[in-house]
């Protein structure tokens, strides 16, 4: 995937003039800031836990190459089928090969999927593909991209969302009731999920010792997507690998807390496909859940980033999106200030790692250097320093 910084600047300008966009962001960011601030003030143990997670992630990144190998072997041991995708194209090819064409595919929100342009690719192969996270579905219906890491439709007001749902899903919604809209989407998606051939998810973390994938959520769509269709494919960026299952759960808890979701409504641990051995101890795969689990480990620039001392720091990121909500620039641009998938402080760096450091650097000039992102990040990533580093890379290239 490629992108162009100047074009992004033009979109940003459009966003500044769009009052509905500005209003939606203002509301969402204020609510989110206050919520997390109160949560952390009330539960000091979470602040402790995030220090611990910062340490876990530091050590994981320091031994990343070795962890990838360990995770690969552990996945095999639990009868999941592992793959290593060097770049976005390879990830698309592997997953496209598994899905084939003419299938019904349901997806649980995954930034990695957005990173490799998975939905569009599977559609181009002749599949019917649906996002099942409400926010991500709205983004799909709008034909845009996720505007925030955990809340992709943050830029939409309820009016916009309801209009999209009624127009694009062909359901009749009266008035401006969010409840009605959620109910309509639930019915629509249920119909798709029960019939789906393949479910695709990302992961919040992957434990190298056990091959277990951890997924955290509040909608329960991830539970359905990963357990209803006969095949589950998980696309997992290699930076999400941590040494142990316990480490992985800790990462998920901190990630949820820093998005304001605490306690997390659901945490799923998935280690291998579903099976039963209840009849004569004969193991049969595909009991009530999927009979196949494929795990695609995605490199796409991450292992190369290990060699740049500053880009390497970003690999600790647990994608909580805190730095986006706290950034004075992001709250006016959302991920329009970013590349094809990621935006905002973390997103510019992820764009540099996974797409193009020079174009990401050109966008970094909008960084104020104010350091609010640095101060908010649960895993102590020096974001403003990295963004300045990207500026230097961009200016040296011109």
């Amino acid at each position, binding site marked *: 995937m490629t992108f162009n910084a100047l074009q992004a600047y033009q979109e940003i*300008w459009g966003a500044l003039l769009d009052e509905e966009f500005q209003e939606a962001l203002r509301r969402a960011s204020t609510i989110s800031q206050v919520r997390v601030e109160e949560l952390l003030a009330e539960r000091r143990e979470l602040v402790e836990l995030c220090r611990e997670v910062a340490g876990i992630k530091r050590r994981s990144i320091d031994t990343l190459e070795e962890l990838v190998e360990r995770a690969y072997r552990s996945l095999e041991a639990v009868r999941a089928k592992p793959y290593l995708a060097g770049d976005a194209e390879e990830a698309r090819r592997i997953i496209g090969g598994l899905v084939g064409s003419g299938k019904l595919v349901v997806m649980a929100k995954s930034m990695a999927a957005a990173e490799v342009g998975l939905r569009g690719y599977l559609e181009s192969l002749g599949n019917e593909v649906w996002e099942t996270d409400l926010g991500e579905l709205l983004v799909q219906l709008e034909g845009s991209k996720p505007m925030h890491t955990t809340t992709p439709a943050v830029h939409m007001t309820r009016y916009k969302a309801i209009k999209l749902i009624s127009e694009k899903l062909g359901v009749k919604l009266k008035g401006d009731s969010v409840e009605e809209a959620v109910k309509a989407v639930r019915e629509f998606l249920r119909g798709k999920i029960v019939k789906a051939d393949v479910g695709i998810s990302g992961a919040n973390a992957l434990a190298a010792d056990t091959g277990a994938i951890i997924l955290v959520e509040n909608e329960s769509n991830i539970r359905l997507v990963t357990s209803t269709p006969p095949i589950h494919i998980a696309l997992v960026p290699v930076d999400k690998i941590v040494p142990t299952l316990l480490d992985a759960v800790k990462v998920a808890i901190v990630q949820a807390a820093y998005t304001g979701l605490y306690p997390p409504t659901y945490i799923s641990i998935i280690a291998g496909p579903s099976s039963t051995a209840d009849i004569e101890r004969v193991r049969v795969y595909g009991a009530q859940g999927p009979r196949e689990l494929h795990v695609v480990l995605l490199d796409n620039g991450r292992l190369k980033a290990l060699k740049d001392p500053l880009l390497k720091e970003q690999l600790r990121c647990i994608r909580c999106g805190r730095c986006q909500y706290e950034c*004075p620039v992001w709250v006016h641009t959302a991920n329009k200030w970013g590349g094809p998938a990621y935006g905002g402080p973390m997103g510019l760096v992820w764009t540099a790692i996974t797409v193009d450091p020079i174009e990401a*650097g050109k966008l970094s000039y909008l960084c*104020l250097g104010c*350091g609010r992102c640095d*101060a908010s990040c649960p895993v102590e990533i020096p974001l403003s320093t990295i963004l300045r580093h990207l*500026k230097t890379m961009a*200016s040296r290239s011109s």
Partner: protein
Amino acid sequence: MLNPLDVVKVIEDNVRRYGFPFPVPREAVYSWAKPLRLLDRGSTMLYTGALYQLTPYIASIVEQLSAIEGSRVSGLALKLSGILSSLGVSRLIVRPKGDMVSVVERILTSIVSLLERAEVKVAYPYEDDMYSGVLLYDLGLDELFKEHAVKVYRALKSRGAELLVTVDPHTTHIMRSVYPRYVDGYDLEVKSYLEVLAERGVRLVREPSGGKVVIHDPCLYARFENVVEQPRMLLRTAGFDVLEPRRSRKMTYCCGGPIEGLTPKMAKMIAKTRLEELREKSGTIVTLCPICYANLRAVAEGDVEVIDIALVLSGAKP
């Protein structure tokens, strides 16, 4: 929106040619100090890095850029170099925002007198009160920044400087935390005048009717240089009731200033958000940085007053 790469280019060229991010007459930096007859050499040296003095020029340039940015609703990335020449660069030189020049002079003069009240005698490097190069650093122009920093360091050393007393957060940060990483053998100690005043116990005139003020922490003091309690303590000593906005101290909120040259529109939106938040607590907003001062003032309406801490502390409050 302006094309940031063009802006960066213009700034780079200007620093190479004039030593400043845009053309400014040299005396504009040190003429305020002439009446004070400060020694031009000494170990304790007041170093402004020219940021306060540049602010009236920045404000005027931003006003002009703002008109250009707003006139192209299509949002086309504009060629800044073309615009600057069509505006005539000379117009940019001679027109600092008039009323701000005198405010800046009063602020700097007040800082010297506050230091005197704390029995700190400072020398001043006049022609060698050079621009620190903050913007070069912020824009990631590392090679040029390094070159510039070495020149500044040598000039200050040649005047006998050992302790630099700085007056704004950007210069404090760059001289204390950044120069050591770029200049070999860097050995200057750096303190903000607010730290010096707090440390040496300045005898402030206590305002009988101080009243309520709200403090706006600049990002660099609060998050990078740990200058947080000193200004509060000084304001309280001077008899003011210091109120905190929702986002303060380490989690303070930016005034938008750093991107005013790229997108004045967004910088203003950020400043407005901050101003409203501050205003909820008090109509008297105390700033500690010239960029914050100019940006918040530019969006202040009605009975809101934005005032620099040096003027508040020296009792020169209008």
